[in-house]
């Protein structure tokens, strides 16, 4: 469970201070398929970054499975992310010199898995995202949709509790985007992994089981949908 308690975060851009989050409070249960929606500058990415422990709040607290994130130092946060969190980025962020298999196995290599386990898990995950035939392909040889599938496999291969996706379909055409969302939904159902993704695309919002809408750094709508 993720508990976000009165989180505030502001940035300084030149002489102006931008208040990205103005006291956000939110609770997310394990296994939710949640979308954080809102226009540009509403604070979606900031909230995602804070939940993903790659940014720190000015005030307020985030608890993940009861653990206060702000109490952790840089090294502890790195280990926490390594074990508990998966990330999917808008621009895929695959390592160009590694092939699909190596990109997927990257998070496992940081954990204490042996080579056999790494191979089995990575191959299985690539098969799940439908890329068993492209394991040796480098990102440059894959389409955008295929690259995002690799990124999803990379996020899920270590079976994290939470996967955070920042506008995962923004760089994809609508057909591929839908396929990616379907895949994420399937994974959420199969592994009970919490998926939190940001978007400003209504089509993507439709897929969410819960929709949290932000505006000017505040939650203006928190809607649960039956799926």
């Amino acid at each position, binding site marked *: 469970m993720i508990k976000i308690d009165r989180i505030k975060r502001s940035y300084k851009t030149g002489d102006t201070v931008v208040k990205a989050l103005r006291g956000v409070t939110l609770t997310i249960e394990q296994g939710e398929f949640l979308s954080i929606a809102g226009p540009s500058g509403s604070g979606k990415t900031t909230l995602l970054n804070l939940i993903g422990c790659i940014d720190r709040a000015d005030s307020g607290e985030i608890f993940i499975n009861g653990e206060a994130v702000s109490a952790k130092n840089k090294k502890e946060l*790195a280990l926490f992310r*390594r074990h508990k969190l998966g*990330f999917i980025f808008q621009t895929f962020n695959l390592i160009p010199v590694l092939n699909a298999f190596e990109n997927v196995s990257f998070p496992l290599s940081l954990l204490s898995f042996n080579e056999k386990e790494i191979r089995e898990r990575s191959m299985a995950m690539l098969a799940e995202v439908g890329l068993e035939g492209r394991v040796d392909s480098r990102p440059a040889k894959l389409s955008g949709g295929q690259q995002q599938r690799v990124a999803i496999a990379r996020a899920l291969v270590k079976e994290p509790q939470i996967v955070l996706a920042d506008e995962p379909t923004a760089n994809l055409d609508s057909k591929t985007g839908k396929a990616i969302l379907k895949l994420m939904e399937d994974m959420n159902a199969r592994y009970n992994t919490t998926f939190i993704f940001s978007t400003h695309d209504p089509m993507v919002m439709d897929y969410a089981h819960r929709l949290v809408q932000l505006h000017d750094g505040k939650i203006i709508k928190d809607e649960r949908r039956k799926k």
Partner: protein
Amino acid sequence: MKFLLGLALKNLSRYKKRTIITAAAIAVGLGIYIFIDAWLLGAEMESERNLIWYESSSARVLNESYWEEKDQLPLKYVIENPEEVTVRLQELKIPAAPRTVFGGELIVREDPFEQDGSMQVKIFSIDPEQDNTVFRFRETIVKGRYLKPGEEGILIGSWLAEDLGAEVGYPLTIVTRTRHGYYQIIDVEIVGIINCPNPSINRGAIFLPLDTADTYLEMQGAVTEINLKFPERSDAEMLAASIEEKLIEDFKGIEILSWKILARDYVAFAAMKQSGTRMILFLVFIIAAVGVSNTMLMAIYERFRELGMMRALGMKDSQVRLTFLFEAGGIGFIGSVFGVMLGCILCLWIVNRGVDYSAMIRDMDIGYRVTGIMRGAWHPKALVIAFFLGIILSVVTAFFPTRRALKMTITDCLRFQ
């Protein structure tokens, strides 16, 4: 660790041209280092050998007051009983050759010379037999013959002979002072011209038989110095000190100086040249370091988002740093391998062929006691140093751009365009 190493190696192939150019910069730097080091080492080794064989000997027995006034070539500070000292040295199995070195004015007259003239010279009076146990002049005669005891004949250096227009059989006059300060004129004839590998001898040396000098200078058997020959590559300073300790009880008022003291000007010159060369090498390495640093900086700047992703996925800063340092080390390794190969190729040439400096050395004293072809010498230690230096240099220069990248927050890295 294995994974990080693998990732670093794969990253090396990411920008092949850049990796090759940077490694080439390191390779050229190291190649030049190895080449110059071998060249200087060869020149120094040959210089030292020529210095000991033709100029200073390994060590010299002197009157303890002589060294302070050596520039005046004094005949008052002498060794009165050189035979006894020589016998004692022979008992210690140290070849020894007595000499009397004195200064004088060399006068040449028109016919057979082109014109009248005179010049200040340093004359070495040598025992024609004993001198060859320490020095090697007998084999350097290029015209005429070697000295005979008791004759009023001299050997002169080939370049001096050329400058004077002298030939074997030409007469010369030496004006000097005896041990007691009286003027003395010695009429001599050139019996031989020597050309040895030590330019300072060819440029100005005059050799006279010791017994002839003894008579004219009223030395009464005394000499100004006894030159010693030590086994090659022995520690001359230590050996000189040990022999002095053994001799000092029986022969009061003497001291033994090693060639490093006798040829202090050369030792200082060699050290100065080494410092100068080190400066050049330092600049070469700076250029290579800038190349590596630039490559790593570009590599890191182009990969900020990737860096952000890796850190977001739980890679510790130390692991990210290690990956970049491995990558830089990889460039350094490639550069080192090719640098050592390049250095060896250049060394093959300088060691076997060398550079002919004879035309330059004839008219200019460059300090080294080498007259003709200056050859290099293999220096395995320099190869090892160069190899590891290339790798260390790359890793160290990559450290700073990596540190800078790691100072950025993960979110800034991910936002980087």
